[in-house]
């Protein structure tokens, strides 16, 4: 029964990883941008939420109402300026620019907001839970995060498959030049895709800030690697693969922790390496978005 509990906890942890990874997956799928600043941006979102809560006194759980639109706008602007300029100069430039962005963000956070650990205070919700039987305990927050992750992926899937903008995003991801020939300004479409990705990374940052403590280095030390692993396990550019990858990673970690507490991270890395060797294209083989 403890093993069943470990799997259930792993699935819910996987929801958090999937939430982190879907923005990374979207940006890679559409623009072939590997955003190394992804984890740090999540932390920026968490710090902005702290500020929003301090100023407006709204409950932290509602801070997303402000933070997500702010981040979407930031994503659009960043894409149309810095990232587009780097894309015009080649893949390596983009990688270097996002790496530089990561360093700048991390150090700026440390400089201006100190290296102290912070958390988004959500009151008793952080520890509230319900039990199934005697062995399985499910925290409401974990469940909420999983539900949000699935809802975000469902919404994204629906947006990409059914809306005019979503269709344009898929067309640009398929063939940028052909999209231009069809009258699409791909730079605007890139901006939209990045805005969505930034909205999801903001949600992930908030979820993490409620879930546990964070500091300016959390983005690179804890988040970016897991997000990458979820994306690679699931299959690059595939949103449902990303959910599956996040959940597999979470389950591997929790089952590893059940075996021995120190083995949590190791188990996740082992799964990642095994997938990389046996199925480098990821567990889903579909190449296209959504």
């Amino acid at each position, binding site marked *: 029964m403890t093993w069943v509990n470990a799997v259930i906890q792993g699935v819910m942890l996987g929801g958090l990883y999937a939430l982190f990874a879907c923005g990374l997956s979207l940006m890679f799928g559409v623009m072939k941008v590997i955003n190394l600043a992804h984890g740090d941006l999540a932390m920026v979102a968490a710090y902005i939420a702290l500020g929003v809560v301090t100023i407006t006194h709204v409950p932290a759980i509602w801070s997303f109402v402000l933070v997500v639109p702010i981040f979407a706008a930031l994503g659009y602007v960043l894409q149309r300026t810095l990232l587009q300029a780097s894309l015009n100069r080649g893949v390596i430039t983009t990688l270097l620019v996002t790496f530089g962005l990561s360093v700048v963000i991390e150090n700026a956070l440390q400089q201006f907001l100190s290296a102290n650990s912070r958390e988004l205070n959500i009151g008793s919700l952080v520890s509230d839970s319900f039990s199934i039987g005697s062995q399985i305990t499910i925290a409401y927050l974990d469940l909420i995060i999983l539900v949000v992750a699935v809802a975000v992926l469902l919404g994204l899937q629906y947006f990409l498959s059914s809306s005019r903008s979503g*269709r344009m995003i898929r*067309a640009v*991801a398929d*063939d940028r*030049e*052909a*999209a231009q020939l*069809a*009258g699409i300004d791909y730079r605007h479409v890139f901006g939209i895709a990045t805005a969505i990705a930034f909205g999801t990374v903001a949600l992930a940052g908030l979820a993490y800030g409620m879930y546990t403590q964070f500091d300016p280095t959390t983005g690179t030390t804890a988040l970016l690697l897991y997000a990458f692993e979820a994306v690679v396990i699931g299959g690059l550019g595939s949103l449902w693969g990303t959910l599956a990858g996040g959940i597999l990673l979470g389950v591997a970690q929790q089952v590893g922790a059940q075996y021995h507490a120190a083995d949590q991270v190791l188990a996740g890395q082992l799964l990642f390496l095994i997938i990389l060797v046996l199925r480098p294209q990821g567990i889903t083989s579909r190449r296209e*978005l959504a």
Partner: protein
Amino acid sequence: MTAAGTTGASPLLEVAGLSVHHGQLQALHDVSIAVPAGQVHAMIGANGAGKSTLLRTIAGLHAPTAGSIRLDGRDITGLRPERRVAAGIALVPEGRRLFPSLSVEENLLIGASSRRTGEWSIDAIYDLFGWMRDRRRQRAAQLSGGEQQAVAIGRALAANPRVLLLDELSLGLAPVVVRRIYATLPQLAASGMTILLVEQDVSQALAVASHVHCLLEGRVTLAGPPARLTGAQIEAAYFGVSAASNGNGYGNGSPPGTPASAGPASAGPASASPAISGPAISGPARQADQPPGVHL
């Protein structure tokens, strides 16, 4: 449906003194062509002559190093490709370049992104290609080559262009499929659309165009209505051999027309002449056709 204000004298599409470089290599040298509204013009020439480069430059995918491109008198040389679509230029690119993960209908809807209005609604495109409506939900990647070419044309039509650029429609398609694709062109021309097409299959180009331009190593070597060009002239302009070639094999007895506007260039290895004269001109350097069974 020619544009108001366009007289016979002023062409709808005018390329003047165009030079294009790919890095160190100059792909086009001082190319000038003018296409009046409602006409079908064809660019012919061997592999690497610069035909595709010309169409792609007109569509905005290459920036010229010199020269200008005008649409109905308006200079569009500096416009981005998507703005040119909005202005009324649509290119069907070489290799079709459909969006493979999108359905047939989605490909057409993407083609309508510029929101230009006109007679080419999605329904009108389905009427042009009868089979397409029933298979609109199918992914573009699942279509045969000929079907993909039809969708690529449909996608360009969805932008309701004034000038339609067609790049190597016949590439990689079985001859019967090519004939069916080309059979739709008169309908497009009848609707007032101006067409500039690139074709390696010279006989195909001569059959549909009211005017042909021959490119050789980035320069226009011959231009004129097909009826007024002899096989020997075309062969010389196409391959760069001097007019000494005896003009056998091509042009079933067409009378020697009046001299073309541009003389054949004398560049190119004359030794190539014996090997390439005769039947080769009906389809030089054609790609391997797809196996039979391709259908539209």
